[in-house]
């Protein structure tokens, strides 16, 4: 009940978590161009994220100590209040919001530091940091909000920042389907996301209609208690499906996944922060936040899982053949996000959130590493033009290697725990086909990641040593790499599966324990709907077996990549590409989804608008009708036209005289 929600003074601190980056944005946005020193700008920008990080830690510790079971709502002010609608700017302290806040500010802070080095010398240095701070502000609003509408503000706000940062180098070219400038890629990201937002908005209307509120907690309690005005599963399915449409936009899932690879037009720290670690996980957050609604709509859950699975698989296959270091990572991100949706779809909410966290570590690291490579290679991004970089960039190499192990699912690195938990959840809920396809995608992941590692850092040097002098990046860039490498290696121990950790603790999965209050209701709904499969030991045995199998899969992917690309001529992959030219091209062209959308939606829409709506309907029909009317009805048009030609002055005199007369009349009668 809302009455029981205490507003504890200490939690008021949550207000400052988004406020401080906002202040950072305002300072840098308004005065940034007068600050000449990069160090000052970088410090302001980074502090504006570091302070909220510290605050998040304090809140986190307190939550753990207090074992709060229901969220604490901290209202700030009433935003929109009219008729029956009253929406507040208000924040919510609970396990989920603080966990996301920690990831955003923590990884965000490291990326800010990194950017000081990466963006050194850029003419718009302060603008970059202003945008980054604005992004952090919006992202924090998204996750800390206590209602849908404030989340939507953040949701759109991060979209705005994504747009601004993809097009940050607005006068540079970028290659893509119908894309010539970075700005085109930025537009694509914003517009595709808007399609998803359409779903989000309608979902909010339906939620208000059903629950008479847009507050998360009110909706959750009403839904969990089955006490809603308008209850039927149909409406819940509609709500959750529309919400999921929003998620497919923001988190780049099929059918709206097309924007993310092109978003790589932005500076690399942006790709790390926005298009890997934080913003693209907003969809996962939204579903996790509304786990009860989704749990009550099993049809939607199925759709979520299938879409996630398809995305995880197809994006991984595209990643196999890309040559741009950032494009490989972009498809990898799409694929990994797909894994997270599989988890949500099978009801393993904790596993989904766990993978958000580990992915933020290792994918953030991979992008930053890629940035370091690009930085050291004078903006070369084609991995076929690299090779042998490990001796020039040892820190980048080692940290990149750690992240590669983590994403490939090598035991005891972070990605192993989170990905395995997802696959295991799918299997244990009876979806063995999902497990199989997911495991195949994991195999591809291991392959393309080691292909990337191999082509970039190993083998012979394929760049021109006279023009390119690879060098290690400065400390501001390498230190964040090292910290993230440690997290990528060890972060998984927060979520040790029971099967592995039962010997030392009854609750080895710390994350699951921590998030339990958030997902408790949803889990109850799901577990009553599906029967428990089998008993403890038998499950453990299966789990061990699957772990072994998936480790084997990862290792074979690595082995294959190693074998393919150790040979300097790449004869095997070349032969494969040649023999399966059709498949290769299809993958290389990303299944031609962009082309399909242009041909079926965009172009017809433009063509109809131009040649029918405008030129025919407006100009011919309506104007024709009016012009015709004008001519026939005692020639109003003609008369006015005659009055028009040359005697405007006279007309003015008459009109002005008329007005004066009328006014005179008014005054007389006053």
């Amino acid at each position: 009940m809302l009455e029981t929600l205490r507003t504890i003074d200490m939690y008021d601190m949550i207000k400052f978590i988004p406020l401080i980056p906002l202040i950072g944005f305002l300072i840098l946005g308004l005065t940034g161009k007068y600050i000449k020193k990069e160090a000052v700008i970088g410090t302001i920008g980074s502090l504006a994220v570091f302070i909220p990080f510290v605050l998040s830690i304090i809140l986190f510790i307190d939550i753990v100590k207090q074992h709060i079971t229901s969220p604490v709502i901290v209202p700030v002010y009433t935003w929109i209040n009219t008729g029956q609608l009253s929406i507040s700017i208000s924040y919510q302290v609970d396990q989920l919001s603080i966990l996301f806040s920690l990831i955003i500010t923590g990884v965000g802070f490291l990326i800010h530091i990194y950017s000081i080095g990466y963006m050194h010398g850029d003419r718009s240095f302060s603008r970059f940091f202003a945008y980054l701070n604005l992004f952090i502000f919006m992202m924090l609003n998204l996750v800390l909000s206590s209602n849908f509408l404030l989340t939507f503000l953040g949701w759109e706000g991060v979209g705005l920042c994504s747009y601004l940062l993809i097009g940050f180098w607005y006068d540079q070219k970028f290659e893509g389907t119908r894309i010539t400038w970075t700005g085109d890629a930025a537009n694509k990201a914003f517009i595709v996301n808007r399609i998803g937002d359409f779903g989000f908005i309608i979902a909010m209307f339906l939620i208000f209609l059903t629950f008479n509120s847009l507050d998360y907690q009110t909706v959750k309690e009403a839904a969990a208690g089955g006490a809603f005005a308008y209850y039927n599963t149909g409406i819940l399915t509609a709500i959750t499906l529309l919400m999921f449409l929003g998620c497919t936009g923001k988190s780049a899932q099929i059918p709206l996944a097309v924007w993310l690879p092109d978003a790589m037009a932005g500076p690399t720290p942006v790709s790390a922060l926005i298009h890997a670690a934080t913003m693209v996980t907003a969809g996962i957050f939204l579903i996790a936040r509304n786990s009860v609604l989704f749990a009550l709509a099993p049809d939607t859950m199925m759709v979520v899982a299938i879409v996630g699975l398809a995305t995880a698989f197809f994006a991984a296959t595209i990643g196999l053949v890309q040559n741009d270091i950032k494009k490989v990572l972009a498809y990898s991100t799409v694929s990994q996000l797909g894994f997270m949706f599989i988890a949500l779809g099978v009801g393993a909410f904790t596993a989904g959130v766990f993978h958000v966290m580990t992915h933020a570590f290792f994918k953030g690291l991979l992008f930053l590493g890629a940035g370091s490579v690009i930085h050291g290679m004078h903006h070369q991004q084609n991995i076929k033009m690299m090779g042998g970089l490990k001796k020039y960039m040892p820190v980048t190499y080692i940290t990149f290697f750690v992240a590669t192990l983590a994403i490939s699912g090598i035991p005891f690195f972070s990605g192993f725990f989170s990905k395995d938990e997802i696959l295991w959840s799918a299997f244990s809920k009876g979806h063995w086909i999902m497990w199989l396809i997911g495991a195949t995608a994991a195999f591809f992941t291991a392959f393309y990641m080691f292909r990337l590692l191999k082509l970039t850092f190993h083998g012979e040097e394929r760049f021109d040593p006279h023009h390119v002098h690879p060098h290690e990046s400065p400390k501001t860039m390498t230190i964040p790499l090292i910290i993230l490498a440690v997290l990528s290696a060890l972060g998984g121990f927060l979520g040790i599966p029971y099967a592995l950790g039962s010997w030392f603790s009854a609750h080895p999965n710390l994350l699951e324990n921590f998030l339990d209050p958030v997902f408790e209701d949803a889990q109850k709904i799901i577990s009553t709907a599906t029967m428990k499969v089998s008993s403890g030991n038998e499950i453990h045995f299966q789990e061990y077996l699957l772990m072994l199998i998936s480790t084997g899969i990862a290792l074979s992917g690595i082995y294959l990549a190693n074998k393919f690309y150790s040979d300097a001529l790449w004869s095997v992959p070349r032969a494969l590409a040649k023999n399966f030219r059709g498949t290769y091209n299809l993958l290389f062209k990303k299944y031609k989804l962009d082309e399909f959308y242009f041909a079926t939606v965009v172009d017809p829409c433009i063509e109809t608008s131009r040649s029918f709506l405008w030129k025919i309907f407006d100009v011919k029909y309506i104007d024709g009708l009016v012009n015709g009317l004008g001519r026939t009805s005692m020639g109003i048009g003609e008369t006015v036209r005659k009055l028009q030609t040359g005697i405007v002055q006279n007309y003015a005199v008459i009109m002005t005289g008329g007005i004066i007369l009328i006014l005179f009349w008014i005054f007389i009668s006053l």
Partner: protein
Amino acid sequence: MAILLTILFLPLAGAFLLMLVNKKEAKVIQYTALAISLATFVISFSLMAHFDSNNPNFQFIVNIEWIKQFDAGFRIGVDGMSLLLVMLTAFIAPITILSSFSAIEKRQKEYYVMILILQFAMTGVFISLDIFLFYIFWEIILIPMYFIIGIWGGKDRLYATVKFFIFTVVGSLFMLVAIVWLGSYVGGTVLHNDAGFTTNFMVIQHALDNQPIPLDIQKWIFLAFALSFCIKVPLFPFHTWLPDAHTEAPTPGSVVLAAVLLKMGTYGLIRFNLDLFPQASFYYAPIISTLAVVGIVYGALVAMVQTDMKRLVAYSSVSHLGFVVLGIFSMTVEGIQGGIIQMVNHGLSTGMLFLLVGMIYERRHTRDIAEFGGIARVMPAFTVFFSIAMFASVGLPGLNGFVGEFLTLFGAFNSPFLNNWSYTIVATSGVIFAAVYLLWMFQRVMFGANTNPQNHALKDISKREWALLVPMVVFIVWIGVYPSTFMKVSENSTKALVNKLYEKKFGYKPYALPASTQQKANIKN
């Protein structure tokens, strides 16, 4: 009372004052006009300060007998809805005048006289509490607007101005007939007063509350008013005068047209159609809402394929005003409130877009999108302002446009009068298209490389231009972040209207209003 009279007549007095100035003294004329409009704006704050927003009824009423023969009076007053529009007018006028300093080069004296007369008449439209007076103001507006487009406009100005004139005159003729009928019906048939006629709005309002016009006749009277208003809005398919008028008008003309003139139509729909003809409103709501929704999508689609920046913004108005009309005919508090705030929003964001397009036109004497590219490099401040206006227009939360769009859509979704989700669902797709047409234009003009040699040396905005844009941004952000300042002004007036509509349709009043203010006996007869 004195405040309202001052706000109304100060610009007119200014116009007379300007007539006395030698026309060669261009600077004197410009600054006098600016000073007068600024003074009006400042005074309008005291209107806001003295306004009692708890009271849903008309305030600051002035009621002076005038033409006894048909009980027409000089009757003015404001309630929450009209107050916001009066404020908008008072705010936009100095902006318009300041932007004219560079946009208007010939016949300055006549021009500033026209603008001040225009301000006088626009204010008059929003505060008239007499339908005859309303009609006079409504018609007066045609004259200065006609000349502003016809004299100071672009090269196809004659076509545009004739088109504007025909459309509007056709509309207002129908309205005149309806006004005459209404006056004699209420004065004669209902009240049997001495004149056998009345144009007193509050008397008519009260009389029709108790004794509605029989539905078959009411429908016709509704249509006569609605036609006039819908042309002004403009509602699809009466919109084709707008792109021409906007494109040919000088920058300040477009600003005032978009920011204030179009709002007279939407204001009229609330003030007259909903209030006086509720039964006909119920009957026609689905049709008008359908046209509004079609307009939202249609305007956006056609805007998408425009090559002239100004024409693009003009078509976007068709789309945005569709949201306003949809909100109004949802007949819910959220929808109407959203509609009212969206009127203000559109005035700000579209007004600002017109200003910005005007600024670039003054520098390059073209508005063809293809002529530009990479402007951000040479005009960074301009680009920032443009992006703010653009995202306000796109409906980005945190800026003003979102509040209006969300509420109108919300109102339409929950409306028991429309009782159909499809309006909202189709209208919401306008949110996608709005991003498409504005972002495409922005990309082609601002981003990319600056390759056209004529754009290499463009100057960023001047101090005067900063002074034009900053106030607009202030309100754009203010309404986006804290709309209550403005929305609470019209909240109770809207609730009173919605109560009435619910009572007529469903037999109950959903909102409790502060007791002391229920139907103060303001009606003199």
